[in-house]
């Protein structure tokens, strides 16, 4: 079982969470080019190593958290509230 340490609930089973992925800022609708929309819709970092991503505690506090995870070992080293300063 993989544990995700929720910023509010403490360590919980990963099955309670929904993986949202890399947080990407939405471009301005009026001025975005096709390439920018493509990047916003489809392009996400896919590193083999440490990555910072958003998880949603779907079956718990229902809050979004920002998680630093190693994608090869699934080790988690830092968790904070999504949007909070590092």
């Amino acid at each position: 079982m993989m544990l995700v340490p929720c910023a509010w609930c403490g360590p919980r089973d990963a099955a309670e969470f929904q993986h949202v992925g890399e947080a990407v800022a939405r471009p301005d609708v009026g001025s975005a080019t096709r390439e920018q929309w493509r990047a916003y819709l489809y392009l996400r970092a896919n590193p083999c190593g440490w990555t910072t991503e958003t998880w949603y505690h779907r079956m718990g506090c229902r809050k979004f958290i920002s998680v630093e995870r190693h994608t090869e070992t699934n080790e988690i080293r830092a968790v904070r509230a999504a949007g909070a300063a590092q």
Partner: protein
Amino acid sequence: MQALTNGYRQDRRRVAYPAKYSGLNLFRRGLMHQEWPPAWRHHDLKGSYDVVIIGGGVHGLAAAYYLAANHGITDVAVLDKSYLGSGGSGRNTAILRSNYLTPEGVRFYDRSIQLYRQLAADLDFNVMFSRRGHLTLAHSDASLRTMRWRAEVNKAQGVDSEVVDPAEVKRLAPFIDVSLQARYPVLGALWHPPGGIIRHDAVVWGYARGADALGVHIHQNTEVTGIDVTDGRVRGVRTTRGDIATRVVLNATAGWATLICDMAGVELPIQTFPLQAAVTEPVKPFLSTVIVSGTLHVYISQTDRGELVFGASVDPFTSYSMRGSLEFIEGLAGHVLELMPALSKVRVLRQWAGLCDMTPDFSPVMGHTPVDGFLVDVGWGTYGFKAGPVSGEAMANCIASGQTPEIIAAFGLDRFAGGVLVGEKGAAAVGH
């Protein structure tokens, strides 16, 4: 546009194998106590090749084989960071089918099935293709509707598919629980007789042997560490065994596709997810078809040895980890028993995971990229193995002609910017 080269034997270069695999040769070598020569040879890494293919799985080796067999390009290196077929080619559940949802997809995968049917004769290698039919179960009105749609698209493309009722499902696979007492009762199924299973290792070895006999160099344990690109054009590849100068590089990796493309500076709309599978102890043959249930996230087939192979949908989060999890096997066992309660005493022997490069529309990314000479055959998600031969044939054509063959024109990298996706989620994803 160049016409599609036919993959059948009569158009091929005659391959002089070091030892032909035949009943007569088996008898003769047995009689004379002769050893068989290795199926492919070891070579020193040359300083330059016409074409370098990254990834020694079914896609990379098929591309190398068809480059040599159909186009006469034999100065080709196939690099793999581990042994041949160590990635997705050896980790899939070896199911073949062509009952997809879009006309582009159906045409493409049907060509693959045609090549697979001829493959044992083409390669002089028993790939153990077993054409046994493929049943996709519908547990809801919505999925039954999608199946009718798929059946009509298939028929329009000349592919044999039809929707059958639960009584027919019971006749084709008597161990399935089609009663209304089931948690998700079976309402019907998409019956696809040309589908089947094959021995995936044999396909990899057969292509490797065929490519080697035509002069392709196969380099195992050779990891690519960098790709040299100057002025928007590929110049060479750096590996753990030395540098190679080349003008054409094909990325035929799965799982690590985005990492290889990062080396060349090509962005891919791909996320990597593990997919787990499991196999049971062998039992007597009782299941003559491949069973798939999208609602229950499971597919089941019985190998020629009698083992039951179970597959599922991808794990719920991105990862490069290939370890199995207990949650997966618990969930899978529950779903299998929903379908076939009689299997409750069968023991699981082992489970494993492979890496799936998921694209937004569940279709692959194939062809040229903005970097001149750098081609991709990636984004194979959960459907890469069944497309091996046609991808190899099309990518070989793409490299030899410098143009994109019509059969893969819909799968270009530029479709994402243009918004012309090839939506196969309804037919390619188990968990739709």
